[in-house]
């Protein structure tokens, strides 16, 4: 737990310390980038990692340099914007933690910290630590939904759902779409992300009507976006800040197998009717 980490690194409340940073700087999408050295001399152990970068950026601006660009928003671990690889680990050294939830009490005085963007073919770097993750939206558009029009729903209690099933669906639905799974995967595979949505919706009765079409379209879109294939190594689940498990990938595999056998994708059923 974090509490024990805090004592392990032995920071006292409000004791400032120094950090040596190597941050990936890249001016634009198609330009070359590289690691640049920075020193931050006034790190407070209670700062979050992003607040430490804020301090660096204020410094850079005052010195007339360009600040480090990075995506961030809610800073409480739920929006999925922040995306840094810290010393080789997506979202840093702690499990179940986003970059914004990582606090500086986790680091030691004088430590060197290497900060890089999430890397994958499907996530091109736009600037510094900002990457383009729009491929995830296109995968969702390919089927990550239940096709129900507003106003046509039955009473919410009309379809009972066992608590056990609802809980597993919620485990999967907790995905924040940050892309750490892709960044940590040696193949740049998006299987954990895709499986989280497929799993959630295939478990719930509301999502069963179009389950075959959903899984096949999402998998095909995933392939089209140049994500790699899954080799069941499990780095994704290890990096996931919401600790989404590999069992959801297995469920996706099951769903896709079902779809392969039943072949109920939209094209097939359209031509069947035609």
């Amino acid at each position, binding site marked *: 737990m974090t509490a024990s980490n805090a004592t392990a690194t032995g920071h006292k409340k409000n004791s400032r310390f120094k950090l040596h940073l190597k941050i990936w700087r890249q001016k*634009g999408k198609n330009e070359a980038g590289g690691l640049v050295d920075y020193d931050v001399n006034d790190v407070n152990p209670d700062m979050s990692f992003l607040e430490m970068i*804020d301090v660096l950026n204020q410094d850079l601006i005052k010195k007339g340099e360009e600040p480090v660009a990075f995506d961030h928003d809610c800073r409480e671990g*739920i929006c999925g914007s922040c995306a840094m690889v810290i010393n080789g680990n997506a979202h840093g050294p702690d499990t179940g933690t986003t970059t914004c939830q990582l606090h500086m009490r986790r680091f030691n005085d004088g430590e060197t910290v290497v900060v890089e963007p999430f890397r994958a073919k499907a996530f091109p770097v736009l600037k510094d630590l900002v990457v383009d993750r729009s491929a995830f939206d296109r995968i969702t558009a390919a089927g990550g*939904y239940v096709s129900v029009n507003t106003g046509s729903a039955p009473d919410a209690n009309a379809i009972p759902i066992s608590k056990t099933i609802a809980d597993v*669906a919620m485990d999967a639905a907790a995905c924040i779409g940050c892309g750490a799974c892709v960044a940590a995967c040696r193949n740049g595979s998006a299987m954990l992300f895709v499986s989280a949505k497929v799993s959630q919706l295939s478990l719930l009765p509301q999502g069963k009507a179009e389950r075959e079409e959903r899984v096949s379209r999402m998998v095909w879109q995933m392939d089209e976006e140049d994500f790699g294939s899954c080799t069941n190594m499990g780095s994704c689940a290890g990096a996931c800040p919401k600790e989404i498990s590999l069992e959801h990938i297995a469920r996706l595999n099951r769903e896709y197998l079902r779809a392969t056998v039943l072949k109920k994708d939209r094209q097939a059923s359209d031509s069947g009717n035609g």
Partner: protein
Amino acid sequence: MNLDSKIPSGPIEDKWTRHQFESKLVNPANRRKFEVIVVGTGLAGASASAALAELGYRVKTLCTHDSPRRAHSIAAQGGINASKNYQNDGDSVYRLFYDTIKGGDFRAREANVHRLAENSVKIIDHCAALGVPFAREYGGTLANRSFGGAQVSRTFYARGQTGQQLLLGAYSSMMRQVDAGRVNLLPRREMLELVVIDGKARGVIARNIETGEFETHVADAVVLCTGGYGNVFYLSTNAKNCNVTAAWRCYVKGAGFGNPCFTQIHPTCIPQSGDHQSKLTLMSESLRNDGRVWVPKARGDKRPPHQIPLEERDYYLERIYPSFGNLAPRDIASRAAKLQCDDGRGVGETGLAVYLDFADAIKRDSASTIAQRYGNLFQMYDKITGEDPYKTPMRIYPAVHYTMGGLWVDYNLMSTIPGLHVLGEANFSDHGANRLGASALMQGLSDGYFIIPTTIGNYFGSTSLPKVDSSHDAFKQALDDAKSRTQKMLAVKGSQTVDDIHRRIGKIMWDNCGMARNEDSLTRALAEIPKVRESFWSDVRVPGEGVALNQELEKAGRVADFIDLAELMCRDALERKESCGGHFRTEYQTEDNEALRDDANFCHAAVWEFAGTGKAVRNTEPLAFENVKLATRSYK
């Protein structure tokens, strides 16, 4: 300023049904001829985009994030209210309506609030159908909990991530329409100007955040779903990118701004830890169901909490408000915490915190039960503070959380500029002077899924909209305005960073227009703010260039508008010479330090009209209470 609220006549229960019937319809085949721009993809924006596209309108949706799923609705934790009465505890549409009006301290429109309560039921049905994994009982039915200020259990939830699940539901239904080609989704776009032609909203100017290029977007109507402006305080629970710019540009173009001074301070946030603090983190109010709030009885008692014996603790909420106890409404709980801390009995290093203690609940229900209910919140607290709330009480302090004020809208959710509709937190409509817990999600989805589809049809059906394109002078003018403002900021090349100035304006607002305000503080703030504006435009440093991804430039534009908004908020707070809900004027309080309303003079919405930078005209929309009797709120 014409402030016709267009509230339908008839008994309150029938107003919405009647209005739906009386609203003009657009023939299904004609709907594709209308293009709607939706700005923002939170609950309101995503649900509106989906619902309008389902009807057949052509929708163009803009959001500032890299993905629409990241809008700040995602961070709402606790839950969403609905008057389902699944718990058989006496809930009803009328009770939810009544609670919301009363909770808002009688500063919201009855008709709007009743409609909200009616729609609440349909929201839960629709969200369940979309695959939102709500919490369930073992029998498979939906679970409920009671939530801040309600005596019935009407709050539906999905662990501590209700906002996330509802937003992902709305996002998924919008993405389905993207797939169907009916929604044209444009992420990483920031709206910088509203384009008004012949008095009607006909488009927007946006900046492509990725490339820095300016774009013009033409439409038949604009739906603004851009959230609240709590970040004017610099430190708030809002996400870092939440801003007022889109709404403020509309205000400058002539939209009335309703009750800007109504801000909600949330009682249960993690206290600030130092000057580096970039934002505050909220701990869901649901924690107050099981946590007990206390401070030491003695001033300046610095002993660790477990060394303070029971008889030396003051469980002040339970003491002062015996019937609501720890569940007292947000404004009351926040102010009570501030009073304790101002009195020198605050805890922690700064003395700006009170304890929220789970020891009794853990003793009663076991640690694993508490972990099931709040596990993720406890973990979040642990990560931020390095303290384990299973062992030591949480420290909490109030923080700015929500803004009830916003652009004025009529019953159709249309602003004073025809064609400009405003949904969700961005409008001023449903929460009066204080919002009840678990009601923001409800309002965002009610506006987006169930109201705008009817009322936008009524607008199209009753208005003639001649064809315009981006070559129109109004578009050119708006584009020039947006570009030149950006150029101006880049050209200053001063010495202060945008954050420096944002912190300054935030501190002025928190000190003078925060949890408690008075004439002195507000006058002081109004003298300070123009100086901040002056120093922004003469001394800000925005590095980099305009035609590129430039996050400092984005922030600069937002802070410039926050400064102007801050002035309007103070002016509004100064003019409202009463206390109500989140607006607490120290001059106007009862003997027990409760808010003292002045219904004779202030039973109205204050709607401000832009009259040049730093100038504004105050208009009013009187509020009539025909169903709920005006009364002093009492939670004792």
